């Protein structure tokens, strides 16, 4: 009996390590966010930032932080969290480590929608609102709505197909997503072919990705979506663990695998499309963040989902710091930067992962 207790004690320590990892991630993310807000053309010290957040900072700092830097940081945190958590969930329900919103057509669909909004529905009147960016899109809501509609549509079509043909497996869903991605990429190119220079510039600029695009009003909307999807994901953490043991095993444990897969995919694609539609294409977060966190938590979704969300937030914050400090005062496009760095990082993870499995 005593031996038993030692064993349980060991398991508790093991679970505690994962909890500590989450706490560490949380503290580090908050710290990164604070550092993030200090970086830019106007340097702001950590102490000053804390003062501003507490409500008694200097006026010029308060303006900079409350109007520009804090919303940008919140955008990075929310969008990083949504993309990463939905990536982790998609990888689980589809049993495919390459599943994420950017590999299942959400990004390409959103880009097509944005192109459509700018070129066809005239959301593309250019203004010189931002000195570093040079161009921005007037009447952004048409663009956002189009991006959201087409971002969600690709996954919804995929899910629709799987509903019509009941025996479509996860591999079928992935392939269908790839096919639709290709279609939307082609569609975007065709639209761009007929666009005038200014609209073309706006489309290309949108696809770069820009966290500064989301204002407080947009952020409240994104926050509501992020919160709702996180609650759904966490509520199903045990179901995802069961799914991970195989579909038949999950069914035998009482999980309605079909419903879980369809609802999860819908929640993932809608929330990812909603985030992406405000800030443009940001890929790879949904792939990299879960894979990094998995090294510590394994596939235990009780820890993997919140861990991925925080890692995603931190990843976007770090990427945007890099975007700001590489060639100041120019802020590099975060989406492009993320993919540029994300690709090699993912390769490293992939081959390290292989070695571990062998």
């Amino acid at each position, binding site marked *: 009996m005593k*031996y038993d207790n030692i064993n*349980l004690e060991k*398991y508790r320590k*093991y679970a505690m390590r994962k909890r500590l990892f989450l706490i560490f991630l949380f503290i580090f993310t908050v710290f990164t966010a604070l550092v993030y807000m200090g970086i830019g053309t106007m340097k702001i010290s950590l102490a000053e930032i804390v003062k501003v957040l507490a409500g008694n900072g200097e006026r010029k700092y308060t303006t900079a932080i409350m109007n520009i830097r804090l919303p940008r940081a919140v955008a990075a945190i929310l969008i990083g969290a949504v993309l990463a958590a939905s990536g982790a969930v998609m990888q689980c329900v589809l049993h495919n480590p390459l599943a994420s919103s950017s590999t299942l057509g959400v990004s390409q669909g959103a880009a097509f929608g944005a192109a459509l909004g700018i070129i066809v529905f005239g959301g593309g009147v250019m203004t010189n609102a931002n000195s570093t960016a040079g161009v921005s899109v007037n009447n952004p809501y048409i663009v956002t709505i189009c991006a959201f509609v087409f971002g969600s549509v690709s996954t919804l079509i995929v899910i629709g197909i799987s509903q019509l043909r*009941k025996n479509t497996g996860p591999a079928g869903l992935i392939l269908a997503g790839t096919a639709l991605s290709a279609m939307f990429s082609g569609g975007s190119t065709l639209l761009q072919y007929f666009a005038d220079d200014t609209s073309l510039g706006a489309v290309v600029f949108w696809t770069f990705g820009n966290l500064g695009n989301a204002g407080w009003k947009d952020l409240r909307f994104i926050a509501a979506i992020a919160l709702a999807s996180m609650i759904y994901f966490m509520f199903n953490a045990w179901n995802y663990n069961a799914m991970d043991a195989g579909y*038949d095993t999950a069914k035998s*444990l*009482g999980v309605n695998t079909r419903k879980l897969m369809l609802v999860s995919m819908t929640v993932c694609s809608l929330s990812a499309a909603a985030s992406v539609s405000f800030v443009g294409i940001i890929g790879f977060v949904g792939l990299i963040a879960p894979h990094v966190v998995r090294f510590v938590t*394994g596939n235990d979704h009780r820890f993997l989902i919140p861990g991925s969300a925080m890692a995603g937030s931190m990843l976007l914050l770090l990427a945007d710091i890099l975007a700001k400090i590489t060639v100041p005062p120019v802020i590099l496009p975060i989406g492009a930067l993320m993919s540029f760095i994300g690709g090699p990082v993912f390769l490293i993870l992939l081959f390290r992962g292989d070695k571990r499995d062998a």
Partner: protein
Amino acid sequence: MLEIRDVSFSYKGNGYKVLDDISFSLESGCFAAILGNNGVGKSTLLKCIDKIVRPDSGSIIADGKDVLSISGKELAKSIAYVAQDARKTDAAVFDAVLLGRKPYIKWDASEDDYAKVNDILDKLDLTEYALRSVSTLSGGEAQKVTIARALVQEPKILLLDEPTSSLDPRNQHDIMKLVRTIAKEQGILVVCVLHDLNLAIRYCDRYIFMKDGKVYASGGREVMTPEIIEEVYNMHTHITECMGVPVIVPFPEEAVEHHIHEEVR
């Protein structure tokens, strides 16, 4: 305990009946083998019993419950299922077994759940592996983990789909012995799809022979005859005993078969 009446199943689209009016019943504490050729519907039958696939018609009563009308969660408290090729999980053994408490868990695992996992690990000699990743275990140990997961579900019926198919001979016997002990000691009904007739005759006490989607024969040791085996597997066999262990010797080649017939005569 388990009563199956007129269960039929066909995959949508082709209308071909994989299972055709299957009926049989089994009691608690039995270790039953489902036998038959590849593609005869053994695995499908097992999946029907646990409603992993839904039969087109028929009824299944398990542990006094109507399987086809109760919720998956309720069913999971009565029937546990071990798939043929369980996905290699990188979860720790303890977590992989804890998953078996899923039907009882509302928000998170309770102290009771942890204690039960601990007991099962102890019983199956898996304690030393508790925190190791399942993917680093040998085939035999990994199979024991999936059986532990099924047992911690506290089922009345345990369904195993070819539990020995990827194991070396020693582990095959260890697993079969373990499962038989569980059936006898805890009074659980174990239903097991098997390809190895020798394992079946040695460890199981009920046999269900399937042919062309139907039950060709079912019963105790009395149905394990060369005649029935020949009809089901299209292969001549000789059943003998070696040091008290029943042994089935196959003679698939006709030439040998004739030779044997000569000798016997």
